[in-house]
């Protein structure tokens, strides 16, 4: 139980141990700890940033989709409008064509009426002449009485 030279030996051992720990053990282990801490902090920061970026991208994508929807709606609207216009146009065209055809038909009818009337007149004139010939009993010289004939014929027309 006495204090003796063992004390000195122990102090030397202790000093050596502390020196060795201070020089070769503490620094590398502590540095690796610090480095890992930094790495983890960086990793977490990067993850946070990634998340933020993802949110931004999501927002952007939503905007793009929204815009695309708007555009497509606009395109559909325009198409509808154009279709309506086309329908209107073709309706107009059809109506015009119809009108024209009606006019042509009317003109033809008119012409045919005219023709028929002319024919009728000539027939009536011929009839009148033949009747007059019979009544007069004499031949009417067409060349001689040309004036009369055309007068009558005009009157009949």
């Amino acid at each position, binding site marked *: 139980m*006495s204090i*003796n*030279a063992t004390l000195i030996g*122990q102090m030397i*051992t202790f000093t050596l141990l502390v020196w060795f*720990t201070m020089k070769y053990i*503490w620094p590398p*282990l502590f540095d*690796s700890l610090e480095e*890992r801490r930094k790495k983890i902090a960086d990793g977490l920061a990067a993850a946070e940033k990634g998340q933020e970026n993802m949110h931004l991208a999501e927002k952007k994508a939503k905007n793009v989709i929204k815009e695309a929807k708007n555009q497509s709606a606009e395109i559909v609207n325009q198409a509808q409008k154009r279709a309506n216009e086309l329908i209107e146009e073709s309706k107009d065209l059809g109506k015009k064509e119809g009108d024209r055809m009606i006019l042509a038909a009317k003109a033809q009818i008119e012409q045919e009426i005219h023709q028929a009337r002319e024919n009728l007149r000539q027939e009536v004139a011929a009839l009148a002449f033949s009747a007059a010939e019979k009544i007069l009993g004499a031949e009417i010289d067409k060349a001689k009485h040309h004036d009369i004939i055309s007068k009558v014929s005009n009157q009949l027309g």
Partner: protein
Amino acid sequence: MATEAHAEGATGYIIHHLTPLHVGEGFWTLHLDTLFFSAALGGLFIWFFKSAAEKATSGVPNLVQSFAEMLIEFVDQQVKDSFHGHSKLIAPLALTIFCWIFLWNFMDLFPVDILPLVGSMMGLEYLRVVPSTDLNATFAMSISVFCLIIFYSIKIKGPWGFAKELMFQPFGPWLLPFNLLLKLVEEIAKPISLALRLFGNLYAGELIFILIALLPWYLQPVLSFPWAIFHILIITLQAFIFMVLTIVYLSMAHEDH
């Protein structure tokens, strides 16, 4: 010590277990078992941490490195809690103290007769395996710490600053002799209390293990098992207390008033 070596019976058994293996006379006696076991345990400590430090990586650590880092973080936290300056020495010192004392104390958990039996087979008459039951070991450590306290007190505060603190505190210059006495007692009490606390706890613990070993065999496990479990707490706690007090004393030495 050696004179009681031939005593018989229970007393002889106890004394035999508490007698160190020694050579030399008077002051120049060397306790070979203390020197050997503490150096071997120091070597174990260095070997373990060195192998962790050599392969230290900031990536995924292996088991050895994880364990070493756990201890380092634990010690570093203790140092940060009480020491606010910057020092390259204090944290490694605290780590060494904690691990070394823990390993010393751990020797107490080996059954009291095993290592002395092996020793006697090798022709060693005495073998005391727990270095912390040797006052020389605990005092060597606490005196080293005391030297560091004095060194840092003088380094940080300057010789005159340190002397002023010894003379003028806590009661001012008019009670200078009283202050000086108080401060000297306070300073000297530090290493003594550090060493005696560790020594007392472990010596008493070892003594109780020896006493249990004297009982009939069927009673021994009933008593030594709970005591060993309790002792696991004590050996860790004593290592922790020594480390924390060292940090506190050194941070006090760094504080300039």
